[in-house]
């Protein structure tokens, strides 16, 4: 087919504005190459700013349905502000939904980052492959063809309820890091589906956006036991309370798992409490008498997607060590030797968490250990009839 200058010009304009351009599935790389060539030529001669085409990661994001696709594309736009990636979004259309076609379709677009002074530099690119259910059989080969060589690949698995066959069969073999979000788990079994997925992915690093969301809380809470307090109160703890928004019990469970793992608490039993919360008993030794009682208590209050409102550790001498969210981005830290202090509690967007997950914080071996510990907690036989489990 001979080149159509008007169409090429229109496509370039759309590309420079970061708008999607429909292309033949088999011609993605060639079309991208042509657009970049034109962009760099225009950048050098007209705008005055050289164009950088950069990618530190191939980022593969499987998704399902138009609504999820729109959300994913917005997320990719935001991620591009923090780290340049070649994003490859794989979307299965809902059957019968508007916009669903018969076969595979592809669009390409750029992610443009504004520079001070009004100059624009095009940073990274986004490829969207979309098709009806059944198209996933083509996704694996397309991803392998579209990966930028020499650049690591991450798979962003945001919907814990999606069938995992595509991920396990096609994507994990070409992936260097798996990113999940435990906060997307609406029911505890989803959390443990992810745990099995993480075990399957081993030894790939598995990063969890939910775990990263808990990072601020963990840091503040850990900071309570820095000198001059030290770790002694943790060894004398008799009670732990994690207050969480209703529906945020999985994040709360991960926090309890973190403390149990770090402090070598041995889980003994679990029960549902009258207020709709959960209780876990732990021992430090080999006996069966409970030495630490941990409560997960649903509480109303403003908080981020992580859903945790407060963590309180009680010591035998009635001393308390508390980190308590007082606003969306503020917390109060309390310990016996100092007055309560208001501190900033960072609330990160999903895109910022994804950027963090692509960095060193996405290789946290503690997460897998805590996830496995949370699985153990959840697997305890409930002691109370009518348990919602």
């Amino acid at each position, binding site marked *: 087919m001979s080149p159509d200058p008007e169409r090429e010009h229109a496509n370039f304009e759309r590309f420079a504005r970061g708008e999607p351009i429909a292309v033949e599935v088999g011609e993605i790389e060639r079309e991208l190459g042509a657009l970049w060539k034109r962009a760099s030529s225009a950048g050098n001669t007209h705008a005055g700013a050289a164009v950088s085409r950069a990618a530190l990661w191939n980022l593969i994001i499987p998704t399902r349905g138009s609504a999820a696709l729109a959300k994913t594309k917005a997320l990719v736009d935001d991620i591009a502000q923090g780290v340049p990636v070649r994003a490859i979004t794989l979307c299965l259309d809902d059957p019968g939904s508007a916009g669903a076609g018969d076969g595979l379709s592809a669009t390409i677009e750029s992610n443009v980052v504004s520079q001070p002074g009004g100059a624009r530099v095009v940073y990274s690119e986004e490829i969207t492959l979309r098709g009806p259910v059944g198209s996933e059989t083509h996704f694996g080969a397309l991803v392998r063809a579209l990966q930028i060589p020499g650049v690591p690949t991450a798979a962003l698995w945001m919907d814990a309820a999606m069938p995992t066959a595509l991920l396990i069969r096609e994507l994990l073999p070409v992936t260097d890091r798996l990113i999940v979000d435990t906060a997307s788990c609406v029911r505890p079994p989803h959390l443990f589906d992810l745990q099995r997925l993480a075990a399957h992915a081993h030894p790939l690093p598995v990063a969890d956006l939910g775990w990263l969301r808990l990072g601020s809380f963990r840091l*503040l809470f850990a900071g309570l*036991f820095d000198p001059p307090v030290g770790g002694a109160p943790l060894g004398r703890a008799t009670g732990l309370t994690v207050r969480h928004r209703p529906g945020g019990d999985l994040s709360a469970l991960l926090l309890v798992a973190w403390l149990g793992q770090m402090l070598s608490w041995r889980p003994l039993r679990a029960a549902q409490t009258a207020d709709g919360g959960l209780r876990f008993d732990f021992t430090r030794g080999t006996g069966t008498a409970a030495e630490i009682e941990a409560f997960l208590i649903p509480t109303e209050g403003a908080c981020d997607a992580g859903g945790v409102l407060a963590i309180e550790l009680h010591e035998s001498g009635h001393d308390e060590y508390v980190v308590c969210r007082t606003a969306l981005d503020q917390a109060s830290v309390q310990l016996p030797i100092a007055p309560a202090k208001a*501190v900033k509690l960072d609330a990160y967007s999903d895109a910022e968490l994804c950027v963090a997950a692509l960095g060193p914080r996405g290789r946290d071996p503690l997460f897998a250990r805590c996830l496995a510990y949370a699985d153990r907690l959840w697997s305890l036989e409930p002691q109370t009839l009518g348990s919602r489990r």
Partner: protein
Amino acid sequence: MKTLPDDPLILPNPLREGLVEERIPEPAAMVIFGASGDLTRRKLLPALYSLTRDRLLPARFAVLGFGRLPLTDEAFREEMRRGCEEFARRRPIDPALWAAFARNIFYQQGAYDDPAAFLRLKERLEEIEHRLGLPGNRVFYLSTPPSTFAPVIRSLGQADLAPKPAPGRPFSRVIIEKPFGVDLETARALNREVHDILDEQQIYRIDHYLGKETVQNLLVFRFANGIFEPLWNNRFVDHVQITGAETVGVEARGGYFEQAGSMRDMVQNHLLQVLSLAAMEPPVAFEADAVRDEKLKVLKALRFIPEAEFDQQVVRAQYAAGSIGGKTVPGYRSEPDVGPRSTTETFVALKLFIDSWRWAGVPFYLRSGKRMPKRVTEIAIQFKEAPHLLFGKRGETIRPNVLSIRIQPDEGIALNFGSKLPGPAMEIAPVSMEFRYGSSFGVEPPEAYERLLLDCLLGDGTLFTRADEVEASWRWVSRIHRRWAEQVAEGRTTLDSYPAGSWGPEGAERMMAADGRAWRLP
């Protein structure tokens, strides 16, 4: 509020495990001497605020400013807030975060040579530590004139504010700004005075160039990539150029600069530190002393410039009136606090050699100047030409490969190489392969002071200068100063002149031309 027993046995905090990547220091207080000065407002507090914003400081952390001006805590906080609003990397300032951060900022008036003021400082510090539940970890930042370094450290010792380290005791560290001495003798004397009070491991001599991301990346670039280090020697490198250019003149620092000159202000510290990192051997580990041992070897291997070659290898000059950024600027001798017959250099260019197996015969050209056309610091490694030229017409040269490491601004690395021009003819054009922090990582690197303050709080001295390094660099630089003094005594001065807005005097060009080379346009 509960108080702790006097000497509790503090158990380690098990919850810190797994948070190591965050590199959060233990709770501490930082005392800044010279708190009412410009550095505190422009660099130190903005750096501490940005660290707080990035959650890299502990929740329990206090700043106590100490200065001559009478200020209340509130007035000091307000001044620091304005500084952060103007200079912090993370802007705009988050009001909630600032409120929490500012609550732990305090101010104490006092004179640096008044022992009673240091006793009052100690009382105030202990009261703050008690109130905020701090364990007694302290960092003292000397952002004061160099003449006060020794008195302040003596007073710290007399007031028992900085006891020597011992297991289980809180730490006390002292950050000392440059210049550390004005020549070898004064640097040695200062080291002796400081060591009377402090162990070397408590001393953090700061050179903010070492906190720059690209300077640290130099080590990663060289020692984490297999392909460059084999080329990093006299078999493949033709020469190295290190440029530290500023557009500013002496501004309000004419009095200081008259005593210092470019050699003391830039070369002795910044450029020789950068040189030592670029030329050093691989350290046995990425640990403070291992890295500093290797840097020291480079400084010790600097060949003293022979008297007979001195005028060919050392060029100094002063800027005359000229134009910078479209504005007319005065010459150096017309600047405030500068004498009309001043012989202080505002530009220096040097050719030097490192006597080692790796660098035998490879010249290193250093230049540093004020009132240059643009602000830029870079290292350029120029490689030798291909041994046999297959391409190009007879007599036509192909530009050599240059690896340039840009330290500021636009931090990054570029590799220039020749590429065939498209078309039937075999024509070669230079092309550049560039890596820039801004575009590759999408974020600007942190300010140098952020990294260095954090490192000090963590007890990591890798990016700070050790006593023997300081003395080794002064030993080399002081010989040049002595020779200049001899020339003045002999009644001849070699001081050139260059118009502001140029790349330096003709003498610097001649120095390169004599070797068949030219300065790069950075």
